[in-house]
C-alpha cells in the first residue's frame, strides 16, 4: 500500500474505533476536569495570581491528560493481537507511526479545545483577542508531546508495568516542551507582543521537527518482531 494511504488508514482506524467506543476522549476529558478542579481547590487565587500561575496549570493538566490518551493508543492494539498484525504487516513502519501520531495528536487537540473554555470559566481569564496564537501554541506543544509519546507508548505497551513506565520515560524528555509551552502561553495570556516569546515558538518547532524525524526512524526498531 502506498505510504500516505497507510498513514490515512491507520489514523482513520483509530478515529472510527474512538467514535464507536468513546473511551479515550471521554476518559481524558474527565481526568482533566478533575485535575482542573483539584488545582482550583489547591490554590485559592485572585485574578492577578491566576494570570501568573494559569499557564503552568494548563500545561500540567494537558500533559497528564495526554499521557492517558497516549497510553491507551497502543494498549488498545493488544486486543485480538492487533499489535502483532501491525508488526508483521508489510506496510512501512514509519507510515504506521505517522498514522498513530496523527490520531493521538487529534485526540489531544480535541480534548484541549474542549478543556480550554473550562479554564477560562474557572479561572476567569480574558483571552478573546489572543485565541489564534494560543491555538498555535497548543498545536505545536501537543505535537511535541505526542511525537515522543507515541514512540514510548509503542515501546511501553510491550513491557511489564507499562502504566508506570510511560510517564517516567516521557516526562523528563518533554521538559523543553513544557518550559516552552508554559512560557509562550503565559506570554500570550498576558497580552505581550509576540516578539517577546517568539523564541519559545521556534524552540517548539525545532523540537517537533527533530523528534518527528527521530521517532519516525526509531519506530522501526520498536516494532521489529
Amino acid at each position, binding site marked *: 500500500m502506498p505510504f500516505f494511504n497507510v498513514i490515512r488508514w491507520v489514523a482513520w482506524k483509530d478515529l472510527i474505533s474512538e467514535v464507536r467506543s468513546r473511551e479515550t476522549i471521554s476518559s481524558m476529558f474527565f481526568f482533566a476536569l478533575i485535575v482542573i478542579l483539584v488545582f482550583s481547590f489547591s490554590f485559592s487565587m485572585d485574578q492577578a495570581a491566576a494570570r501568573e500561575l494559569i499557564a503552568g496549570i494548563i500545561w500540567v493538566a494537558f500533559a497528564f491528560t495526554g499521557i492517558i490518551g497516549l497510553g491507551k493508543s497502543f494498549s488498545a492494539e493488544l486486543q485480538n493481537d492487533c499489535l502483532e498484525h501491525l508488526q508483521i504487516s508489510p506496510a512501512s513502519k514509519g507510515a504506521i507511526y505517522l498514522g498513530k501520531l496523527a490520531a493521538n495528536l487529534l485526540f489531544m487537540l480535541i480534548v484541549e479545545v474542549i478543556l480550554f473554555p473550562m479554564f477560562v470559566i474557572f479561572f476567569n481569564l480574558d483571552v478573546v483577542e489572543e485565541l489564534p496564537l494560543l491555538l498555535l501554541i497548543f498545536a505545536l506543544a501537543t505535537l511535541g508531546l505526542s511525537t515522543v509519546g507515541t514512540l514510548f507508548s509503542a515501546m511501553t505497551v*510491550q513491557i511489564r508495568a507499562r502504566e508506570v513506565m510511560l510517564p517516567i*520515560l516521557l516526562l523528563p524528555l518533554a521538559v523543553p516542551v513544557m518550559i516552552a509551552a508554559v512560557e509562550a502561553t503565559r506570554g500570550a495570556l498576558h497580552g505581550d507582543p509576540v516578539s517577546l516569546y517568539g523564541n519559545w515558538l521556534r524552540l517548539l518547532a525545532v523540537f517537533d521537527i527533530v523528534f518527528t524525524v*527521530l521517532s519516525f526512524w526509531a519506530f522501526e*526498531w520498536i516494532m521489529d518482531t
Partner: protein
Amino acid sequence: MISALIKWMQRYEGWVGAGGGLCILAGLYLGLVASPPDYYQGEVVRIMYVHVPLVQTGMLAYSTLFIGSLWYLWKRDPIVDNLCHAAAGISAFFTALGLITGSIWAKPTWNTWWTWDARLVSFAVMFLILVGYLMLRTFVDDPEREARYAAVLAIVGFVDLPIVHFSVEWWRTLHQPLSFSMRGVSMSKPMLIPLGIMTVGFSLTFFYMLMVRTQMLYLDHLLTAKKGRLLSQAHLSSDVGSSPSSLSTP
C-alpha cells in the same frame, strides 16, 4: 566461547584501573594540598577537583552509551548491549555523585543548594533518563527486545539533552561561564594541572568499571542462556519418562 572484546578487556583492565587509581591519588594531593586557594572562593574551590571530573565522566559515560547504542542497532551484537547496560549504570552513578557534589559546592558559593540553572537541569534530566533506562531494562522479559528498546531510549534521550540545555538557558541561568571554551582556558596553571589529572583519573576509572561490569553482564548473559538450555533439556527428558535428576548432574 569467549569473545575477543572480553579477552581484550581481561588483558587490559588491571592496567587501566591502576592508572586511574594513581592519577586520582596524584590529583588529590595536587588539588587538596599543593594548589593555592581561589581568590574569590577560598578553600571551598577544592571541591571543584572532584565535582568537575565527576560530571565530565558522567557525560563521557553517556556518550559511550550513545555510541554503543547506535553500534548495537547497527550490528545487533549482544556484547555491545552488555557494554551499553554497564555504561548506563556507571553514568547514572557518576551523574548522581556530580549532582550531589555540585549541590554541596553551590551552598557556600551561590548560597543555595539548588537552582534552576541550565546545566543543573540538563544533568537532572540526564539522571532521570538514565534511571528510566535502567528501569526499562528490568521490565522487559525478552533480552533481545530489551536491548533494542534500551538503545532507542538512550539515543532519543541523548538528542534531547542539548534541547533541554538551551531551553533552560533561555529560561534562567546562574552557573558560572564554562572555564573551557573555544576562546581558550580561563584558569591558572596550578589549578588546571590537578583538574586535568583528576579528569584523566576518573575517566580511566570509568573505563575500568566499564570493563569489569561488561564482563559481569556478559557472564550473567551466558549463565542465563545455559540455565535455559539445561531447563529445556530437563523438560524434554521428563517428557519421555526418564528421571528428571539430569538437572543436578549436568
